[in-house]
């Protein structure tokens, strides 16, 4: 058999401020978007369950935090993003959006926080950092907006039903009160850290940006409180169960939001907001997207994987964009891009065999609970 490739010692990519700690904790390191990242510490399934049932901590410092400052910053983001930052009126409020090219293809997805009328903060993906920054700067110059990459910050995601209660033990009592009062999808400054009630797991929790020097002691303190160290492997199964897209798998520059399950993030209203990609998307919205992204639950035994062929009864084909074994459901689940007219029953080609799968509406799991019927078990 051919074994998966892991990195043993020796730096091949960029490293986060927590890299040495990951090694010390026995993490298995893989390349992720040019970064040496922990994929798992002991058991990927164990780490997944820790987040669904208690709390886990992820190093997401490879993601790129970008501060945008200037009097015309809101207008710049209204041009750059397919969702409309005009929706952000309360300081700290976050918005999920795609950044598109002129053809409507997705350059990246991002979460953008409104901090003040002259200051927004965006978090973009690690693998797209350089092209994103180049794209943003190209338009920022004309708006007089200053673009600063916050490489001085590390980012930890503490997720799970006990995540917030554990995380606030890193703060002063006053800070803990302020953090616990945060509504969903809102962040604020707490004692020099930026604490946001966001995540990528389908559980409650925080994402905390902090000076790089604070990250290692914070991680150790969380471990001592019973928060499990979790790698990118568990992060991937958690986000897929939660019905959240992964850039590069489920959408990229060759696909548009309406065929990527992201139509809900495109704000065509008001009609006079001229965001990049608007014309292409408006045309698709009028004509109807020829393809759609759906959730799949495998009815037969096996594991759905990225790039497997989906066969539509009566003709047509699609492709799995993300597939995995779901530790919570103990079944295989996936996202697949299929023709718009596809029905509820499809087949997937796994090593030459056609296996039955059912189309289901994501998310598959939220707050520890299955959201889809599992009446028919795998045969």
């Amino acid at each position, binding site marked *: *058999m*051919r*074994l*998966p490739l*892991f990195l*043993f*010692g020796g730096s091949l990519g960029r490293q986060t401020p927590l890299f040495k700690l990951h090694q010390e904790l026995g993490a298995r390191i893989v390349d992720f978007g040019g970064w040496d990242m922990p*994929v*798992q510490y002991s*058991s*990927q*399934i*164990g780490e997944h369950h820790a987040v669904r049932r208690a709390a886990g901590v992820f190093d997401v410092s490879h993601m790129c935090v970008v501060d945008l400052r200037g009097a015309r910053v809101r207008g710049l983001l209204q041009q750059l993003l397919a969702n409309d930052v005009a929706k952000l009126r309360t300081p700290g409020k976050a918005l999920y959006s795609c950044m598109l090219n002129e053809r409507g293809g997705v350059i990246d997805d991002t979460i953008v926080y409104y901090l003040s009328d002259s200051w927004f903060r965006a978090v973009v993906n690690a693998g797209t950092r350089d092209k994103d920054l180049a794209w943003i700067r190209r338009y920022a110059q004309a708006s007089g907006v200053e673009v600063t990459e916050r490489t001085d910050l590390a980012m930890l995601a503490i997720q799970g039903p006990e995540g917030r209660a554990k995380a606030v033990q890193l703060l002063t009592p006053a800070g803990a009160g302020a953090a616990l009062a945060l509504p969903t999808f809102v962040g604020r400054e707490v004692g020099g850290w930026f604490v946001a009630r966001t995540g990528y797991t389908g559980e409650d929790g925080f994402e905390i940006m902090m000076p790089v020097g604070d990250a290692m002691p914070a991680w150790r303190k969380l471990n001592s409180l019973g928060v499990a160290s979790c790698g990118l*492997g568990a992060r991937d*199964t958690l986000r897929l169960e939660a019905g959240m897209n992964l850039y590069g798998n489920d959408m990229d520059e060759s696909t548009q939001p309406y065929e990527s399950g992201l139509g809900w993030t495109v704000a065509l209203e008001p009609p006079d907001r001229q965001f990049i990609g608007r014309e292409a998307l408006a045309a698709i919205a009028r004509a109807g997207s020829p393809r759609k992204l759906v959730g799949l639950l495998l009815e037969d*035994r*096996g*594991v759905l*994987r990225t790039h497997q062929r989906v066969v539509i009864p009566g003709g047509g084909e699609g492709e799995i964009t993300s597939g*995995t*074994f779901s*530790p919570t459901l103990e079944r*295989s689940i996936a996202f697949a891009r299929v023709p718009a007219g596809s029905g509820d029953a499809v087949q997937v080609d796994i*090593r030459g065999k056609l296996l039955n799968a059912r189309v289901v509406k994501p998310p598959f799991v939220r707050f520890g609970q299955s959201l889809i019927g599992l009446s028919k078990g795998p045969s």
Partner: protein
Amino acid sequence: MSKVPADLKYTKSHEWVRTRADGTMEVGITDHAQHALGDLVFVEVPEAGRVVKAGEPCAVVESVKAASDVYAPLAGEVTAGNPKLSGEPETVNTDPYGEGWLMRLRPAPGALTGAALVSAADYQKVLEAEGG
């Protein structure tokens, strides 16, 4: 440090082979392999009666992250696939050299002399060379 029992034969591609009293050969994947793959969630084993060539993909082990083919260590006819693994694939993680066996083979005539099997000591050297 992964376990390499001295009484088994190995392939350089991380399969092990045990000679049974009835002359059939039991085949599985090594402790090093199961550890590198991580939690197994699906195992597909061949059915009895299937004839395999040495080096032919004859079983699939899938972890959460990836699927990997297992190659037949020698030519022969499959006498049994381990029925336990369809319901409990994690057995390969917990007991790779025992309950987690994948298949049993009756070697084809002359298959043993031509098989590229190595001793436990030599397999250990393969692992050291891989840095594991």
